[in-house]
């Protein structure tokens, strides 16, 4: 399809956006006009988020955490919090788990597995 590329043309593939829209429950017909606008706002949103994250980064290297920080701090981006959690190191995770286990220390001592390992009792917690 030979459509002339003007600066106002969209980058994202309309068919893919349409597939995503139709996977939403309760959606019936998706005509070309709303499809165009949803695609447009998605592009605007990505640009906006990238710019804000870049400002957050103070450098010439944009990383995941710069974006995750924005998402966690801006309440209008609450819908993204589950898919863009702040990431922590394994050590931080272990420390968190150890704290949690210490708190639940009284409960876990009733389990029989406490003798099986040299690690702390947090081992008997399921993931």
């Amino acid at each position, binding site marked *: 399809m030979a459509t002339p590329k003007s600066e106002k043309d969209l*980058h994202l593939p309309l068919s893919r956006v349409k597939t995503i829209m139709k996977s939403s429950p*309760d959606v019936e*017909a998706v005509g070309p006009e709303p499809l165009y606008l949803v695609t447009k*706002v998605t592009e605007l949103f990505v640009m906006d*988020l990238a710019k804000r994250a870049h400002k957050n980064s103070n450098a010439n290297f944009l990383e995941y955490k710069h*974006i995750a920080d924005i998402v966690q701090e801006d309440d209008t981006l609450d819908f993204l919090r589950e898919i863009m959690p702040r990431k922590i190191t394994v050590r931080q995770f272990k420390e968190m788990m150890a704290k949690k286990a210490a708190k639940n220390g009284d409960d876990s001592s009733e389990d029989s597995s406490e003798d099986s390992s040299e690690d702390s009792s947090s081992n008997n917690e399921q993931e």
Partner: protein
Amino acid sequence: MAEKLEDLNLPLTVVTRIVKEALPSGVSISKEARTGLAKAASVLVLYVTSAATNIVKNKKRKALTGQDVIDAMKDIEFDRFVEPLGEALEHYKTMASARKSASMKKKDEQEDAEIIEDD
């Protein structure tokens, strides 16, 4: 509902292009950041679609319109996109009617050509 999982993702190359155009040249973006933005974009499509669909249902209509998408921006507190989307809608309508009159004109010209050849 035979959608493959990839179909619900937006292409990473395209998302990268959008991000690069938005940022000053020379900024590099980690792969994790790009993937994160691509996923965020997919989720946004669903989020906006859901908000617009709610509006349509409240108005007891079925088919989404462009205006519903714009109205949804206010509901989800994305007021900063209302104006650019309004402009985009105007642009879209202009393009759509230009395309329509261009194809009608083409059709007329084809018919004229056939009349001339047909002697």
